[in-house]
């Protein structure tokens, strides 16, 4: 118990230090380009943390990132580098459109059906990855990235030819009112409770069940896991499948859980990058579900707040770079320990 407390303390100190370095890094970038970093950061936090709308918007941004962060974290905990959340989120989003937009069901049932179906579609999209990994040894980075592209074009095709909104061809059918999470305020809906609940559930699965123990054991020491009889095929399938459930829900959250569009655009502009941003979230959150709750909110604040830096006249592309630097520094400790583990494990 004391050891855990010490580790927690250590990671808190580390986090504080890298937060500082990250912000200093962003500040240096701004100074180089002739902007006032203090004013920019002030504006960023004043806009996103010191107003009710700002908090709601930041939380709304955090919802999908929490889930895609989980996808990556479960992979790392089980020893796999799962970057498939991106494509699985697209699939989840179209899954949500199919149920929420094109089928009529009573309230409640409709919402639940859309939520579950999108999660399952996201998870099914992980099966080829697992199968290729388990039986053909194809590295998951290769297969997930390929499937991300397939998902992108498949979803665009489905919207273009089957699920477009008549008269508004730029987007898919919007979720019917019976399949929408109710709005709390600004862009935040009650889907955040489902999301946090799911995240805590994953925490329990990973740390309080035999299955979770097997996943984590495989992740930290595959040899030992095999020695004690853990079925590695099961581990592969389950870790990618659970990750797919999370990513599918992330995609769905943009359809049935975010006003005012309640649908995806054909460009997929409102789901694109959710998966990749999730990697940063997972790394900042130390690949721990509870850490991810906080890190996703942190990134949500940055993403929402960066428009205030734009408002000061900072080039929009530079605001992306500043956020990138902050996220990069924040990810470093976990990235370092992951690389260390990889090198030690590889010996």
């Amino acid at each position, binding site marked *: 118990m004391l050891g855990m407390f010490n580790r927690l303390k250590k990671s808190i100190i580390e986090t*504080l230090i890298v937060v500082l370095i990250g912000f200093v890094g962003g500040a240096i970038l701004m100074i180089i380009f002739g902007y006032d970093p203090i004013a920019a950061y*002030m504006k960023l936090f004043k806009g996103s943390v010191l107003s009710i*709308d700002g908090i709601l918007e930041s939380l709304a941004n955090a919802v999908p990132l929490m889930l895609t962060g989980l996808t990556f974290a479960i992979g790392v905990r089980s020893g796999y580098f799962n970057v498939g959340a991106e494509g699985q989120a697209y699939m989840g989003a179209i899954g949500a459109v199919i149920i929420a937009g094109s089928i009529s069901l009573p309230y409640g049932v409709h919402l639940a059906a859309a939520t579950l179906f999108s999660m399952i579609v996201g998870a099914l999209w992980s099966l080829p990855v697992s199968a290729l990994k388990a039986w053909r040894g194809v590295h998951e980075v290769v297969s997930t990235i390929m499937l991300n592209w397939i998902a992108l074009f498949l979803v665009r095709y489905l919207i*273009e030819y089957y699920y477009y909104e008549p008269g508004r061809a730029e987007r898919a059918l919007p979720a019917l009112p019976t399949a929408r999470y109710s709005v709390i305020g600004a862009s935040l809906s009650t889907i955040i409770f489902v999301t946090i609940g799911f995240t805590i559930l994953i925490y329990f699965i990973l740390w309080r069940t035999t299955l979770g123990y097997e996943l984590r054991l495989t992740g930290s020491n595959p040899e030992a896991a095999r020695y004690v009889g853990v079925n590695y095929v099961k581990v592969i399938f389950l870790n990618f499948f659970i990750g797919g459930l999370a990513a599918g829900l992330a995609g769905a959250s943009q359809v049935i859980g*975010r006003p005012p*569009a309640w649908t995806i655009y054909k*460009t997929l*502009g*409102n789901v694109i990058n959710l998966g990749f941003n999730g990697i940063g979230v997972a790394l900042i959150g130390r690949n721990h579900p509870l850490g991810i709750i906080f890190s996703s909110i942190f990134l949500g604040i940055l993403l929402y707040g960066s428009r205030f830096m734009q408002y000061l006249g900072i080039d929009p592309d530079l605001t992306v770079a500043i956020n990138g630097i902050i996220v990069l520094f924040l990810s470093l400790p976990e990235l370092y320990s992951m690389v260390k583990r990889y090198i030690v494990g590889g010996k």
Partner: protein
Amino acid sequence: MLRAKNVLRKLISLFTVILHMRKIDGITRVGAIVVTIILIVAVVGGVLYWYMSVGPAAPRKVKIAVVSDIGGRGDLSFNDMAFKGGDEAEKDFGVEMVELVSKVEADYVPNLEIGAKDPDVKLIVGVGFLLSDALVEVAIKYPDKNFAGIDTYSQDIVKEKYPDKYPLPNLMDIKFEEHKGSALVGAVGCLLAAYYNEKGGKYPYIGGVFGIEIPVLWKFEIGYKWGCDWALKWYENKFGHKAPIIGEDSRYGTGPNWKEGMYCPPETPGQCWYKGRVLWTYTGTFSDITKGYEAAKPMYAKGAIAVYNIAGPLGLGINQAVKEIAEARGLKMGPPFWIGVDANQDWINPGFVVVSMMKRVDKGVYYATKLVLEGKFRDVVKQYNGVLTLGIGTQVMGTPMEGISASTLKDLDEFIQMGVEAEKLTGKKVLPMGPDEIKAKVKEMRDSVAPWIWEALAELEDKIRKGEVEVPLAFTKDAIDYWRNILG
């Protein structure tokens, strides 16, 4: 700058302190954490306090906020033109424009909202129909601010979703009379065919490549076809004979209602039409450039002298088809041509883009700002049920506000300048050749065709402005069916 440096120095020393603390044993570490947190809170709090106490006291300018869609800056058409309108408003009215580029669709609402929250901002402009829903939500939330949308249909959404609030008094959809502009370029196209056929060419058609079949595009389609019909009748009137091939040929149809290559349907007794002169394809996409190429290629093969781009980026596909023909035949100049849309696209492939149907998004932003500054914005919203339509000869409360025109040599400069700026912004090569070369080539092309083509264009524009002719507006299924029966 100096402030920033001082704070940097403070942060660095703080960081060093923390690093050293890590060497101290267990119990004092708790203390270290507490000290660190206190330090950070103190620094942040101090800076906050200091900043708030020395707020700027400069005189406040009226601001307008322009929120782009995800195309953003450097798209050379829609968004760039909107920002250009803001630049002009800055110059002419002394307002300050705040630019907000949306990176994803989820940015629309928050971007509109931070504009609305700034007390100095009097007008928030959303650029592009994708922002329609977001504008409605934000405009309802901030009833004291004025909102304008370019090409949006926000008030229709208000009508559907919040019928008791329709029309929202602080929200203006700015639309354009694309059917009139399309008629202008349709006329140019068919007269071009007539002119080159006189010189021995064989051009029985003009073409149109459309995007997804939505009612807005029907406006373009019928306007374009009607313009061709008007032009061929104009030719007949002026020269006393029908235009060679495109005016007289019997390939377009035969039967009881056909007379000398014209269609005289029972619906319009005593009136005949040049039916079937336009080859048209709906590609079903606004993004797949290859579809533009695939659609344009057979049109040119059938003898279309010019193909009108009504599908945004698909114009690049049409351009590709033209380039191939030009290379195969060693041409320096059309025919074949294509026709640009929205912006002045004549510079994209100088000598091969005969004219562009310009939709002056910049004027939309400019006029909206003007109305706000003159205090007339809400009156106009009230008078027109929230929709301001800019076109040819538009008058709003006694002030001319035009938004549609055929491209001219004169306005080519502005758009070349836009290309120059886009090159700076994106670091990519945008212009096909130097600005002067482009201008020379476009002028050469315009001079190479008969001057009466440009005269006819000016005449049609003038007649539309004076209301002497009425370009049909097809916006419903019934209307489009009716006009397709007549014009093909």
